[in-house]
């Protein structure tokens, strides 16, 4: 590695236009990302519970999955998180609920589908939601929680389309 000589010690270097083949600058934040889906259908709890069983769709960069349900990022910053949950049951579901939370217990956002009387005949529903999450301590993990209420059968979070994508934007 070469330094900028006398300019390296300057607090700020200013130019009007910089052309480079490759720039690695932590402040630009465009290189931390990951996308995961479920490796198999996951049984849905009846109270909000962190969903497990994620597997990477593309090779993640700067994000690790721990304990099957917790995403830890390598840098503090602001992350754009997008979630699609597919709730499935053989017969109708009354409530399907999903949310983006962290390991500190903060609930950022979510989606809810609820019907009255358990006679909706709803067999598949998507919950699609997104949030910006500021991570100030990389020990704080991101989780997706969910629950399903159904009058019969065993509802699951389907592996077909359930997905989470995380991307650092600042």
């Amino acid at each position, binding site marked *: *590695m*070469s*330094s*900028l*000589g006398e*300019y*390296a010690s*300057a*607090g*700020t*270097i*200013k*130019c*009007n*236009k*910089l*052309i*480079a*083949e*490759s*720039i690695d*600058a932590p402040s*630009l934040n*465009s*290189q931390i*990302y*990951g*996308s995961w889906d479920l490796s198999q259908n996951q049984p849905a709890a009846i109270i909000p519970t962190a969903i497990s069983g994620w597997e990477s*769709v*593309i*090779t993640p*960069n700067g994000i690790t999955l721990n304990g099957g349900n917790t995403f830890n990022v390598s840098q503090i910053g602001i992350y754009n998180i*997008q979630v*699609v949950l*597919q709730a*499935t049951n053989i*017969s*109708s579901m009354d409530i399907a609920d999903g949310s983006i939370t962290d390991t500190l217990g903060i609930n950022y956002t979510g989606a809810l589908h609820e019907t009255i009387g358990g006679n*909706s*005949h*709803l*067999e*598949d*529903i*998507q919950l*699609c939601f*997104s949030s910006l999450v500021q991570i100030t301590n990389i020990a704080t993990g991101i989780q997706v929680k969910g629950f399903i209420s159904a009058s019969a059968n065993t509802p699951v979070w*389907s592996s*077909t*389309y359930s*997905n989470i*994508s995380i*991307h650092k934007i600042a």
Partner: protein
Amino acid sequence: MTSLGNYASASVLKCNNMICNTLTANNLKSIYGQFELSQITIAVGTFTTIGNWIPTTLVKGVSVQPGTTGNEKFYVSEAGVYEIHMNLWAAQGATDITRMESRLKLYPYASVFAGSLTKVGTAADITEFTQNNTAHIEITDPLNEYFEIEAKVTFTSNTPYFQTAYTRVFIKKIA
């Protein structure tokens, strides 16, 4: 243009703080695109690629090319990781939509990268709704890899279609 003199040929230069009015880096190019439907598009009960996509004014380095059903093949100009969002607004005259499924497929592998499914066992008076999908995909061969959006809608009568007002595709290179 002023060069960095002896340092211009160095493979790596490091500084703590740099301010630039314009920054051009081949690995950080802005590549993005927003596309919409040129007309309402008929939906059928088997998976069919949605055509009729047209670019909005917000397009750079992304294009849609013709295929068997219309303008349907999304190509990007550079290899990298892309974030894709889809909003599909399905409408049906006055009777029930009983199932809608949409998905993103990466070709030439025909791999499914994202999708959504809404299904009711018995008619439930759904006449319109919007389905959203999101995905990250990695393009390694931008000349030969492209993606398409497929959907199918089942219903009790009439002919469902995708509305133009809210149906969109958003593409952004993120790495």
